[in-house]
């Protein structure tokens, strides 16, 4: 059974008084998440009990780490339902998207081809495509969102044509938290002969993800947003695509041999994409994080978050100084602003005030800088829930939001 109080005991950060000497109410889970003790322990184990590099099993210690590293790939594969050789370890979602744009895009796109994204995409799912377009002469086009800011299958279909080579979209967007129908979109994209890249940074941590079922061609995500360490991510790719892709980085560990006559034999995928000493510690940490999430159950996590979000929305709606931009979104992200004297309070001022009460919420444009014309505001305050948040924390948020005035925001600073 899902028992949030028991779960909270797994998190050191939730025990003390970690923000401004107040008990931490961490609602910035879209940026990064807290780590359960088992992940921290795994990292400690690597550094205290079996530090060593991988890829050479000359001595037992190294072999142990090598095995654990390979095992982690299997755990990831099981988690998203693919083969382990389709799991490429990256340094994060950003790295993964750059790898796809460079490795697949440069080879397969040319002048007049089209890349489709939306204005709700994160910078990391926008800028690599801008550059790819610039280099290849392809065009980036934006699939229009509906008036709530959602991506609909209809709008995707309207934009599809045989020039479309790549469609790259978030499964769940990081500002509005809408979940797109990847399965249907993927069908439509494949019908015109394109490939579908899914940015899973905000979805994989929150909803069960099955790449076979979704039938996407690539999926990227980041460990640190799902209870794992920083600088570890995954790029899933269908194997036949990975086989033909060029690595973004070259170096040790990813080649089988090379000589002074410029003959180079790369390893097979996934290894050819993992140049240099990888983030060993974090690969092991990610494994622990995934096993932790699986033990709780991804479905339980989603169900709990949806419930908690509903509660938060209904409470926030009772306040008349709050504008919510995505009341009906699918997962735990709530984007809002506070009004005082008929004016939207600047997010940074609001966050500072909330912080004084232990509440950690991020404000700003959340790296989705193309979205703002659409929403009619420059920035929002973002409450991003995770499965360790509670109703009591929401109650505290509501209580503090009630008193969020320009006066109080200023008093928080001077």
């Amino acid at each position, binding site marked *: 059974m899902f028992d949030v109080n028991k779960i909270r005991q797994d998190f050191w950060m939730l025990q003390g008084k970690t923000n401004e000497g107040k008990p931490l109410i961490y609602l910035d889970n879209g940026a990064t998440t807290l780590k359960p003790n088992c992940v921290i322990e795994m990292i400690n184990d690597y550094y205290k009990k079996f530090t060593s590099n991988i890829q050479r099993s000359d001595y037992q210690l190294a072999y142990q780490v090598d095995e654990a590293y390979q095992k982690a790939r299997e755990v990831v594969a099981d988690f998203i339902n693919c083969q382990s050789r389709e799991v490429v370890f990256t340094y994060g979602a950003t790295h993964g998207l750059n790898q796809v744009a460079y490795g697949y895009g440069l080879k397969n796109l040319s002048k007049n081809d089209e890349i489709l994204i939306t204005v709700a995409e994160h910078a990391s799912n926008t800028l690599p495509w801008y550059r790819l377009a610039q280099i290849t002469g392809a065009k980036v086009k934006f699939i229009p969102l509906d008036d709530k800011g959602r991506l609909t299958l209809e709008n995707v279909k309207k934009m599809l044509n045989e020039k479309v080579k790549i469609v790259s979209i978030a499964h769940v967007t990081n500002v509005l938290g809408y979940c797109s129908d990847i399965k249907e979109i993927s069908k439509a994209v494949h019908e015109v002969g394109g490939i579908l890249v899914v940015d899973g940074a905000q979805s994989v941590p929150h909803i069960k993800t099955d790449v076979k079922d979704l039938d996407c061609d690539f999926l990227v995500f980041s460990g640190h947003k799902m209870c794992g360490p920083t600088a570890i991510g995954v790029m899933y790719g269908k194997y036949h695509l990975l086989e033909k892709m060029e690595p973004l980085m070259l170096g040790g560990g990813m080649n089988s041999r090379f000589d002074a006559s410029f003959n180079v034999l790369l390893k097979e995928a996934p290894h050819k994409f993992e140049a240099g000493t990888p983030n060993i510690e974090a690969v092991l940490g990610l494994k622990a994080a995934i096993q932790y999430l699986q033990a709780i159950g991804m479905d339980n996590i989603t169900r709990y978050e949806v419930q908690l979000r509903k509660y938060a929305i209904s409470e926030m709606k009772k306040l008349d100084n709050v504008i919510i931009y995505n009341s009906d979104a699918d997962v735990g992200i709530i984007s809002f602003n506070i009004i005082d004297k008929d004016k939207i309070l600047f997010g940074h001022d609001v966050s500072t005030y909330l912080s004084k009460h232990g509440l950690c919420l991020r404000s700003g444009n959340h790296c989705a800088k193309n979205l703002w014309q659409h929403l009619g505001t420059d920035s929002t305050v973002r409450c991003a829930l995770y499965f360790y948040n509670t109703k009591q924390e929401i109650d505290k948020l509501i209580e503090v939001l009630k008193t969020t005035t320009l*006066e109080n925001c200023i*008093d928080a*600073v001077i």
Partner: protein
Amino acid sequence: MDSVKDNPILKREIIMDHYQNPRNYNLVDDNNYRQIHMYLDSCFDDIYLQVLINHDIIEDVRFDGVACAIATASTSIMTEIVKGCSIRQADKIIQNYFDMLNQKDYDEKLLKEAIVFDTLGRQANRIKCATIGWKGLKKLIDKNKNDKE
């Protein structure tokens, strides 16, 4: 200004007033003004600053943009203080303001209303907001000096 220093309610009122009715707001379309664009990635503050310097006197300072209460108020207050000052005097005021925020010794009299931020240095994450306009002015003045040399 001693009364301000010990009076948080008065401080807050001054800041709110400058935030809600920023002075010297809106830019002018005049090539004699030097202009700079200042922005903070970490806070989304984003302002444009203009200054008109004649014979080493700051004849006008103007600003515009989107910014938080602290950035807007601190910039607005700055424009009022330095307008009419000589460049040397402005330099001194700016230095004093930074000293105050860095919790060093400073000369209160020079800072006038800017004294409302005397304790802001304790809220380290907002120092950037409270200095964005001031740093912009400093850059414009320095550019002016360099161009003349």
